[in-house]
């Protein structure tokens, strides 16, 4: 039963992930006192993109991107099947590298700039994710998500991990102020620029998967207290949207500095906090 359920959750992730994205857009619109698009807007976009003409720049470019989507999907499956946190992080790294290579394999300056910046932002957030995974291990004694979700709630020890992860969320999702790798007005979406039609839909759906990936990290901090976990996710969802609306983009080198100083710093504080104060 639970296997079927996990499978369903994973399989339909690109679908219901769209609802989260729709809610996100409405939330941001409401913050700006706009009405905003309907919640189902991502699905309208999806269906529209299906009906457009299929354009590609070159075959490898498209293939790398398709495998980015597939690997990311596999990672989401691993999350729902309660896999190992480290494998999930590194699987996500692999997927991201596919995407970066996709960006490099066209002759477009925006795409290449986007890839360069994405690579740097990976260098910025990857260590934070690993350090936070180690923090989670220190508290629960396991990397397996299924075991973490069964363990008793111990959020007090993970406060700093939570704060540190708040820096990772906008970087992975490419939201302000850490959206230098996407930079819609500056480099026209970075790696996304050369995709059109149904292929852009894959990139678009990958955003939902990224959302599920990064918020699941926050969800598991609350371990078996699912209501509190949901609260954490909603809180960080709200906080990230607020920050996205109210801050300007920072340059890629400032991003690196900020993530290493605050995100990584908080990760280290978290290890000390867990080892010295909580155990």
């Amino acid at each position, binding site marked *: 039963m639970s296997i079927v359920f996990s499978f369903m959750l994973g399989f339909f992730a690109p679908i219901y992930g769209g609802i989260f994205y729709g809610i996100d857009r409405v939330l941001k619109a409401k913050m700006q006192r706009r009405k905003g698009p309907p919640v189902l807007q991502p699905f309208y976009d999806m269906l529209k993109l299906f009906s457009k*003409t*299929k*354009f*590609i*720049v*070159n*075959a*490898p470019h*498209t*293939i*790398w991107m*398709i*495998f980015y989507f*597939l*690997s990311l999907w*596999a990672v989401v499956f*691993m999350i729902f099947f309660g*896999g*190992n946190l*480290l*494998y999930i992080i*590194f*699987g996500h*790294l*692999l997927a991201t*590298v596919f995407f970066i*290579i996709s960006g*490099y*394999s*066209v*002759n*477009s*300056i925006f*795409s*290449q*700039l986007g*890839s*360069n910046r994405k*690579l*740097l932002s*990976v*260098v910025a957030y*990857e*260590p934070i994710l*690993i*350090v936070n*995974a*180690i923090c989670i*291990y*220190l508290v629960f004694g396991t*990397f397996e998500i299924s075991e973490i979700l069964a363990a008793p709630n111990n959020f007090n020890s993970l406060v700093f991990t939570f704060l540190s992860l708040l820096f990772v969320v906008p970087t992975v999702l490419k939201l302000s102020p850490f959206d230098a790798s996407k930079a819609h007005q500056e480099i026209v979406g970075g790696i996304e*620029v*050369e995709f*059109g039609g149904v292929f852009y839909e894959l990139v678009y759906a990958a955003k939902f998967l990224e959302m599920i990936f990064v918020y699941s990290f926050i969800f598991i901090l609350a371990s078996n207290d699912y209501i509190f976990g949901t609260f954490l996710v909603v809180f960080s969802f709200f906080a990230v949207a607020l920050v996205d609306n109210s801050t300007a983009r920072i340059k890629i080198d400032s991003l690196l500095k900020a993530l290493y100083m605050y995100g*990584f710093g908080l990760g*280290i504080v978290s*290890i*000390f906090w867990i*080892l010295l104060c909580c*155990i």
Partner: protein
Amino acid sequence: MVHFLIGFFDFVLLLYFMKVGFDFKNIKIQILALIQLILFAFAELNFTHSGSPDFIIDELAIFMMIIINIVGGAIALYGIKYMLYEDAPKYKKDIFLVYLWIFLVIMNFAVISNNLLYFFFFFELTTLSSFLLIKFRNDDISNKNAINALLLNMIGGLFLLIAVCLNLFTNHSIYINEIIQNKDYISAAMIFVVFAAFIKGAMKPFESWLLGAMVAPTPVSALLHSATMVKIAPFLVLKFSPVFSYEISFLITLLGMFLFFIFALEGLGKNSFKEILAYSTISLLSLMIAVAAIGTKESYEIALLLIFFHAISKAILFMCAGILEKLHHIKSIDDMQGLMSADKPLALLILVSFATVALPPFGLFFAKLFFVEYLAKLIQTDILYIFIILFFVVGSSILVLLYFKIASLLLSTNNHQQTPAKTPLSFVASSYFLFVFMILSIIYLVTTKSDISIFSIIFGALFVSLIVSLFVFKFNNLQKISVYACGENTIGQIGQFYFDFEKYAKYFLYVAIFLWLVLFGVSL
């Protein structure tokens, strides 16, 4: 009899080093050779046989021999083809190939010697062969770098000899199996062996010899960086790690991990392909030494994984670098632009080899994964390991940046239109062979560790289907469209950025030397 022969040849070898010192008018080499001669004479005079055998083939030795012979053998075979493109007289080419094979033989003996004096002999022989190989092209820069390599490695030899003499002086055994059985035997002698290993492993103040080795023909770099020479360093540390005290083990790990991070950073500023590979080698080598020095059962296995898969990946990468140099005349990574369209199989091989160093589901990645898991366990008992974690996670992601920075140039189809060239199969055969060997080893690894199996099957399948689709799907039925350039018809160019950490280099050096000194102080 064997002992007499080895002693005799060792004297001859040291006299030869002396002669090299005179030939090149290098007073340092002369002095080093003289000191070594005196110490060696002292050691020979005081040496007495104990019951232990002079050669022991244990598990570690077999493991090293597998690497040396399979990876080294593949490289030596590759050398035959490579030498066809080299501009040198026929007899020199033959001698070069003979050197390569002799080098492998020496390495085989080095890993099975149990007597430190014998080990010293083979250690010096590897120094000699690397000197001769680096000197092969005989121009100014080759000679200079060869002399530098000789000099630095002789310091390593000297350290080893000091260790032997100290052991003899304090009436301790110089048989490795006896040393590592004696748990409470901690002395300054041990630290000299470790220092010798550090120099062979090109740790911070002594990294210039390995970086300089890239002036030699590429099979030499491939051999030095992957299967032979530098692997003595983690091998020695692995051998002696069971008797390290906690402080020494921690300090070596810290130093190694620090250098892992530093070398990765310094590699970011380089633009020669071989130099970048060299930096990634010394970076990973420091990681191996760091892991080996922890000295527990888990770390032992992780270090073996690192050594094994690093040897294969680096051998493939260096062989590719040789092909690039000879066939496409590419040395700098900036010239690599457009290689994907010019020679797709080769470019993909390089790309996949990068993936094997950094990404799942390949061997080196698993080693790193196990290490993170192991570190998470370690830190529970000892908070000091937090420094190790910091350097490790940051260093790993910087290595990813280092590799895929090159990938960008490999893939881009910018202005440099290269003439399409097809690499002859005989040239890449050894690379493919090693690659298949690596895949088989990974499959073996996955079957022995059940918890990584599903993960690696999923991502392995993704990887395979990706490579297949890159060759199969052309999307000919879809409309092709030009890239977006704000409506312009001209296409912009983009280069790759470099991160220069040159100005911090001296601080890195100070920290490294400080750690060496602390290590030395603690051991006393």
